[in-house]
C-alpha cells in the first residue's frame, strides 16, 4: 500500500462488514450499558427530588479531576483502537506498544480516581455523607471495578499479541470492545455526576 492517495478507498472496500470481536462481548456491552442506564436513571430521579442538596454536594467535586479522567480514558481508548488496527495489519510490535499505552492510561485514570476519592474523603464527603455522595462513590466504584476487569481483558490482549503462535485477532478485538465500553460508560458518568445541574 505505497500509494497513499488511492489506498484509502481500496482499504475501506477491503474491509467487508465484520463484527469486531466476539458477538458475545457485544451482547455483554449492550446488557451492561442498560444496567448502568438503570443506575443512572435512579440517580437522576433521586436528584430531581432533592435538587438543592445535590447542587450543594456536587459543588464539592472538582471538575478538573473529571475532565482529566475523561481525557485519560479517551487516550486509552484511542490507543487500544490503534492496537487493534496495527494487529489487523500484522504490525504486532506496534500493536503491543499501543496495548501497553492503553494500560498506562488506564493506570493514570485509576490513580487519579483514587486521589480524587482521598481528596473528597479528607474534605469530609464519604459514601454515607449524603445522597449525592452515595451515588458518586457508588457509580465511580462500580466503574473502577469494570476498569480493573478491563485490565484483565488487556492482559489477555497482550498475552495474545506476545507470541506468534497465538495472536487471535478476534480476542484482541474482544478485549478492545470491552475497554471501549469502560470508556463510554465513564463519559456518561462524568456528564451525569459533574456537569448535570
Amino acid at each position, binding site marked *: 500500500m505505497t500509494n497513499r492517495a488511492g489506498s484509502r478507498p481500496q482499504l475501506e472496500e477491503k474491509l467487508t462488514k465484520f463484527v469486531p470481536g466476539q458477538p*458475545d*462481548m457485544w*451482547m455483554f456491552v449492550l446488557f*451492561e450499558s442498560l*444496567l448502568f442506564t438503570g443506575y443512572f436513571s435512579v440517580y437522576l430521579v*433521586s436528584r430531581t427530588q432533592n435538587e438543592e442538596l445535590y447542587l450543594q454536594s456536587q459543588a464539592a467535586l472538582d471538575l478538573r479531576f473529571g475532565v482529566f479522567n475523561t481525557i485519560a480514558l479517551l487516550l486509552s481508548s484511542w490507543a487500544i483502537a490503534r492496537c487493534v488496527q496495527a494487529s489487523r495489519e500484522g504490525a504486532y510490535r506496534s500493536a503491543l506498544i499501543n496495548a501497553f499505552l492503553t494500560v498506562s492510561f488506564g493506570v493514570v485514570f485509576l490513580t487519579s480516581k483514587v486521589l480524587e476519592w482521598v481528596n473528597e474523603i479528607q474534605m469530609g464527603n464519604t459514601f454515607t455523607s449524603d445522597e449525592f455522595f*452515595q*451515588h458518586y462513590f*457508588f457509580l465511580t466504584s*462500580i466503574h473502577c471495578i469494570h476498569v480493573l476487569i478491563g485490565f484483565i481483558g488487556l492482559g489477555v490482549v497482550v498475552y495474545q499479541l506476545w507470541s506468534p503462535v497465538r495472536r487471535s485477532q478476534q480476542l484482541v478485538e474482544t478485549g478492545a470492545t470491552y475497554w471501549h465500553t469502560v470508556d463510554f460508560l465513564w463519559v456518561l458518568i462524568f456528564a451525569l455526576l459533574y456537569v448535570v445541574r
Partner: protein
Amino acid sequence: MSLPKMKTTEPLTAPDPPAGSWVSRLAWNFRHHPKRELWFAWWVMVIFYQLYGVLFFFVTRVQPPPSPAWDTPTVTQWFSDRHLGILAGFGVVFLITGMCAPMNALLAYSMRRMSVSRLFAYSYLIIYSLSAIPGMLVMAIAMTVAALRPDRDPELIHWLYDFAFLSFSGTMGVFMIGSLVWMVAILLDKNCVFPKWFGYLSLCNALTEVVVAPAWIFHRGAFAWNGAIAWWINMVVFVTYTGVFIVLLRKMIQREDFGAGPLPDLPDKGVADHSDAAEAVR
C-alpha cells in the same frame, strides 16, 4: 431390548423407546433413558424456582422487601399481617430446601462436562451448598421465630426482622463468588458447553450482587436492602440470569453425548434424533 454398557468415554446414543401408550413410554424412559437423572435434576430446579417465587412473593409476602427505615410498631404490624402466610410458607420452604441439591449438582455437572479442571465443579458445589444457609434458611428461621409468638416483645421482633433481611440480602458475596467460578469455567471451556455470552452475563450477575453490599449500611435510599439499586435492579438481572441458565441447561442436556470432547450442537429439526422421541414423553 438390552442397553449397551455405558462407557463414559464414548458418546452414547439412546436406544429407541418402544412405541405404545403414553404410560408405557414414560415407564420405559423412567427405567432406561440415559439422561433420566439429568432431566430429573433439571425439573427439580424448575419446580424449585417456581415454588421459591410463589412462596417468597405470594405466600409469605416477604418479597419485595419492606423498608429498613420502619419503626417498631410498623414492623410488628407487618408481621401480624403476614402471620399465617409466614408460618405456612416457610414451613414449606424448610421442606423443599433439599431440592437445591440436585439443582446445584446439575450446575456442577455442567462444569464437569467442560474441558476445565474439576476443581471448578467442586468449588461451586461447596459454595452453593453453604450459601443456602444465609441466603434462604436463616431468613426462613428468623421470620418463623418472629411470627410464632405475636405477643413477643416488639423490640425482639424488630431485631429478628433486621436479622432476617440483612442475612438474606447482605450475604450476596457468597453467590457472587459462585457466579464467578462458573463464569471463569465457561470462559475457559473448550467444549462449548455454554455460549460465551452466558459467561459474560454471569459477570453482570456477579457485579449486581456486589451492589447489594451497601445494604449493610443504609436504612433508606437506593442502597438499602429494599432500594431501587440494591434490590429492584439486582432482581431484574438475577431473574433474567436464572431464566437464561435454565434454558441453557436444558439445551446442554439435549446436546449431551456423555463424551469428553466438545459438546455437539443440537441436530436440525428436520433430522429427528432418537433422544427427541424420548423427550416427547415428558
